[in-house]
């Protein structure tokens, strides 16, 4: 590795002042009072690397976040639609070239992508403690400190919380447990499929199969190679048995969630799936999904996943990025994010920390839970994601 400005760690950096580059880092900024950061942010142009495949999410960013940042802080905000592996790859190239004037200032990230970013020193540093709005977040929640087995260390802050759910059209009696879903697939040949596991939605479905095979979620609480060796075959066997009943008899799988949603919208399959139990609502409203689309959270357990906001090591506008992230954690922005006609995804607020008016608003908006809290399953260690990616094609698709 070539020389580069080392990533500031909260404690170590005081000892080693690194003059190179002279860029403001997380430590110098953490000394500054918040008002100064807000002042320095004024007039900046920032952009955010984020997945762009959901119109509802894009509408939230363009219609709520961007105008607010413009009016309140004179910050010009724009999205750069890109899949996480792609922007991480770009950051890695910039890291190797010591390029400190990156074109992205905020990252939308979680899980194995966060781990990759952290391990390769692609992140700005520990900034969570600087944000005043972290007060609204329940710091006791396990996901604040730990993201799918990787220690967060303040390098990213939770932004939203979603449940995995399934959408059906025209199903009279849609399945409510994994067992029933597998039977349903058999009774309705060609109606079901799931995306390729290089895609997080498809990978998430297989993670549910891991939970299905495991006797209790505790078996999977930590990455356990011995468990995989003993039970891995059962996971693949379940999927191999499912395959002939799937769309195209499991000969091929949709390449992405958008492709599966397209099949669903065209009526070629009659179920689709994905993180965010409310994601179908805006799609029905736009007329993409049929009116009779029904969303089901499995009572046998549904993975609950948290996603985060972070900053790349080479942001040129760290103050503005901090101000924008801080706003996105505010009760105002989090409540607007609940609105089903736009994004409609779960908040990460601590209900004891917000005002009673805000609490009422949240409760009115959240309404009936698709997945009751007691059915939520913990997200798995990112190494399980790798294990699925490494073996699925060989064990399931090639074994037809």
């Amino acid at each position, binding site marked *: 590795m070539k020389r580069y400005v080392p990533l500031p760690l909260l404690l170590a950096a005081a000892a080693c002042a690194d003059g190179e580059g002279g860029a403001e880092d997380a430590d110098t900024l953490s000394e500054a009072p918040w008002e100064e950061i807000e002042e320095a942010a004024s007039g900046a142009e920032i952009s955010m690397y984020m997945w762009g495949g959901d119109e509802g999410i894009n509408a939230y960013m363009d219609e709520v976040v961007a105008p607010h940042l413009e009016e309140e802080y004179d910050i010009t905000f724009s999205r750069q639609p890109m899949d996480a*592996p*792609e922007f991480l*790859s770009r950051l890695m190239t910039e890291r190797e070239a010591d390029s400190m004037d990156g074109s992205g200032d905020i990252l939308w990230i979680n899980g*194995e992508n966060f*781990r*990759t970013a952290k*391990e390769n020193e692609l992140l700005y540093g520990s900034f969570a403690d600087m944000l005043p709005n972290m007060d609204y977040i329940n710091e006791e929640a396990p996901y604040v400190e730990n993201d799918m087995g990787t220690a967060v260390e303040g390098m990213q802050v939770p932004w939203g919380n979603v449940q995995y759910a399934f959408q059906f059209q025209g199903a009279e009696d849609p399945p409510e447990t994994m067992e029933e879903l597998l039977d349903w697939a058999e009774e309705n040949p060609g109606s079901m499929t799931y995306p*390729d596991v*290089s895609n997080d939605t498809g990978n998430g479905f297989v993670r549910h199969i891991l939970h299905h095979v495991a006797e209790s979620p505790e078996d999977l609480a930590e990455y356990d190679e011995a468990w995989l060796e003993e039970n891995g075959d059962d996971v693949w066997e379940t999927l191999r048995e499912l395959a002939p009943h799937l769309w*195209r008899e499991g*000969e*091929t*799988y949709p*390449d992405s969630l958008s492709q599966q949603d397209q099949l669903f919208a*065209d*009526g*070629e399959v009659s179920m689709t799936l994905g993180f965010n139990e409310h994601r179908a609502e805006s799609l029905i409203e736009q007329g993409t999904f049929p009116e009779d689309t029904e969303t089901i959270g499995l009572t046998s357990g549904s993975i609950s996943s948290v996603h985060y906001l972070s900053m790349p090591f080479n942001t040129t506008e760290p103050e503005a990025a901090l101000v924008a992230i801080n706003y996105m954690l505010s009760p105002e922005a989090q409540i607007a994010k609940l609105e089903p006609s736009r994004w409609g995804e779960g908040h990460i607020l601590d209900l004891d920390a917000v005002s009673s008016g805000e609490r009422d608003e949240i409760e009115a908006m959240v309404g009936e839970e698709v997945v009751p809290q007691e059915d939520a399953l913990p997200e798995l260690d*990112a190494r399980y994601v*790798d294990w699925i*990616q*490494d073996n699925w*094609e*060989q064990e399931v*698709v*090639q074994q037809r």
Partner: protein
Amino acid sequence: MSSSVKSWLLLLPLLVFMILFVGQGMFRAFQESLDVGGSSGIFANYEALAADGTFHAALGVSVYVAFVSTMLSLLLGLLVTRTLTSWMKSDTWKLGAWFPMLIPHFVGAYLILLFFAPTGWFASAAASAGLGFPVMVQDTAYIGVILTYVWKEIPFVVLMLLPVYQEMDGRMQEVSRSLGAGRWTGFRFTEWPWVRPVLLETGLILFVFVIGAFEVPALLGVTYPSMVPVLAFDWFYQSGWSTRPLAQAMMVLLMLGSILLALLLLTTAYRWRERGRSHA
């Protein structure tokens, strides 16, 4: 200034661009494909690749798709050019024939999806006529991918062949006919010697393009076996980048294969032209 020095100078901007961007990229790919300091030798990734069944399947399907698409495009392109040469003198016709070249490949692939998918136009038409419709997109025979390439590449073949036909000496055909040659013999002796090197070069361009292109098989291919560029993309990004060196090794092999093929075919085309000249 001698003419060869001058032509090199004229090429200089392109060469600098190639070395800076393409060359640098190829060098990086090669560098990342090596296993430096590993216990299993510097070419360990290439050995792993040679033993990898998924890679073999990807290579097999890639060669099949590239070969079939190229051959069909050349054949149909040749037929179109021969039939239309006399009309092609007008610019309107030329533009009409070349129009599909303006459409990007992924748009072309979407159009194929729109027409040929099981819920597409042709399937609906077949269904209303009470007929079934075969699966032609995202199919293991890669029919949709081949269809896309064939209709996209025929205009390119026409573009390459048209000058040959327009410069052809029509009197040769008349002579062969007056000597009693049939259509095939006439084609064999009055057209083929001029068409052959151009077809070979065009075929090379098509084959190398199809085998290395990503977007069409990504949209219309299948999960397994996937074409080499799609597999490379997957390996490049998945599993915390651990399979990235394999992806790079695969791309280096694809590149070397393409260069070897180019050398072989271009020398053959050159030899054919020389022979044609000495006969004339």
